[in-house]
């Protein structure tokens, strides 16, 4: 009964790490780990906890960019963002900064990372350098739960649908560069769009390649359903987006400097809460390559 809401793939206890779930649907804090020194057995347990909880959190880490990258590479090859430039001296690390004067933040919609790529990033990790005194939390939503909680009739109907996901969906009529230049241009300065916009078609119901579970693979990059007009798609798209973020499917993480979050883009959405105007927030992000959704 107590495992009802978790993704348990394994009932054996953890030996090298302590795993503490943070909410009913998803999310767990991992304790007893120094990410700059991990043996294979510890890493294996971390990987398992990640699959079981969709997003895992570490606190109190002190990582140099090189140590951070070394940890990231254990998960796979590094995925570079098609639209945004990395750090000058470490192009595989992407800095996310919001200054005291800026008003817009990066990631302020419910989405899965780079859903517009033909092979979207499987994982994203975020490491906090500087965080506001209060605010700037990140919310996550479990897309397995979003799928499982639909009626059988709805699941059946959705099984045939594909989504059309856009790299620059132009929310409110504005392109990425236009959106990010709100009261400062830290993020706008990082925009480096490809010559051609990247858009991809993916199945709406995605099977996780490692757990085999089905997830409602939708996010803010999803413009419409493939083969349907935008107008025809809208009611259902809106319904599914609102469904996916029901509080019962979510968890919320409060950052401190040295916190690291690692989430699985194949089965959860996330949302960067923009509630800390006037304070600075500085994060380092690395994304790990994924494969073609099926």
């Amino acid at each position, binding site marked *: 009964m107590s495992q009802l809401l978790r993704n348990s793939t394994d009932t054996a206890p953890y030996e090298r790490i302590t795993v503490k779930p943070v909410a009913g649907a998803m999310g767990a804090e991992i304790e007893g780990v120094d990410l700059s020194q991990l043996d294979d057995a510890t890493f294996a347990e971390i990987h398992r906890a990640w699959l079981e909880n969709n997003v895992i959190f570490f606190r109190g880490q002190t990582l140099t960019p090189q140590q951070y990258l070394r940890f990231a590479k254990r998960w796979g090859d590094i995925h570079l963002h098609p639209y945004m430039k990395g750090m000058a001296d470490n192009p595989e690390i992407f800095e996310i900064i919001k200054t005291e004067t800026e008003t817009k933040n990066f990631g302020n919609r419910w989405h899965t990372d780079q859903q517009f790529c033909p092979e979207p990033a499987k994982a994203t990790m975020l490491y906090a350098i500087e965080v506001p005194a209060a605010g700037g939390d990140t919310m996550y939503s479990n897309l397995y739960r979003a799928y499982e909680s*639909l*009626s*059988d*009739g*709805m699941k*059946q*109907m959705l099984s*045939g*649908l594909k989504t059309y996901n856009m790299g620059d969906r132009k929310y409110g009529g504005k392109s990425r560069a236009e959106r990010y230049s709100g009261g400062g241009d830290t993020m706008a300065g990082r925009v480096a769009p490809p010559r051609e916009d990247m858009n991809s078609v993916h199945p709406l119901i995605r099977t996780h390649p490692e757990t085999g579970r089905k997830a409602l693979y939708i996010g803010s990059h999803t413009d419409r*359903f*493939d*083969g*349907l*007009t935008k107008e*025809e798609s*809208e*009611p*259902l798209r*809106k*319904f599914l987006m609102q469904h996916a973020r029901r509080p019962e499917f979510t968890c919320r993480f409060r950052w401190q400097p040295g916190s690291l979050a690692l989430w699985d883009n194949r089965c959860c959405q996330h949302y960067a809460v923009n509630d800390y105007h006037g304070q600075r927030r500085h994060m380092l992000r690395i994304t790990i390559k994924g494969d073609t959704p099926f």
Partner: protein
Amino acid sequence: MPEGRQLWNFRPYETIEVARIAGALGAEITGADLTKPLTDDLYSEIYQAFLENQVIFFRDQDLTPEQFLAFAKRWGGIHLHPYMKGLDEHPEILELIKTETDTYAFGSSWHSDQMFAPKPAKCTMLLGREIPPAGGDTMFANMYLAYETLSDGMKAMLRPLKALNAGDKKRAGGDRNRAERYSGASGMKLKDPGNIQTESVHPIVRTHPDTGRLGLYLGSHTQHIDGFTPEESGPILAYLREHCRRPEFICRFRWAPGSLAIWDNRCVQHYAINDYQGHRRRMHRITIKGEEAPF
């Protein structure tokens, strides 16, 4: 299509004249006197016009109840309304009356007749007896067009779906059941449906048994998509309802005493406009039985 079912064989008209009244559907027929018994050829031509235009209109048909019934019986078995009583002398004829003081108009929502029955009525005939000086028109919507104008992706998505249609739930867009609605209609004689089935699941995309064409099949009786929760159904049904009533899919008929309309419930929705408060309107209605369950 069921085994052995033949589609209608369309031929040129020889006796009647058929004049379209709008781009989407609807035609007025002249050259037929319905007070006299119909020859087979004449009936065939009229039925063909009915299939081609989905709703047909005749003017100045001064039919007695007996003549009306005789005409109707050429079309098939007479369907008795589960919720309403007919005329005392002719229980197959329903008298729809809205008096000067009534507020509720029967049929004032987009719907197809008796979608809630396992074999819904095939067609409905309405004869104008007393008509207000202005107002009380009826609108008709072409459900073939509503389907055909959807994208291929949307069509594919809807094809396998069915919906639950109910005779006495709160109508879509309203929050009262029949008894509550009819309390504003003094002339309507409600009756208990008894043992008749008044909730049925039908496909949302329906194939017409005579033309083979596909049309959307939903109306105000439609509660939700079968197998879905009402909450999940809401957005899709709301979209389809809005879509079905686009002006481009509609024709509108203005009544006079002796006007007769016959519409095809298998591919048409209709709407009785309630815009003549303070005037009397009286109609006679006969519905023809459906021969099969929708497929």
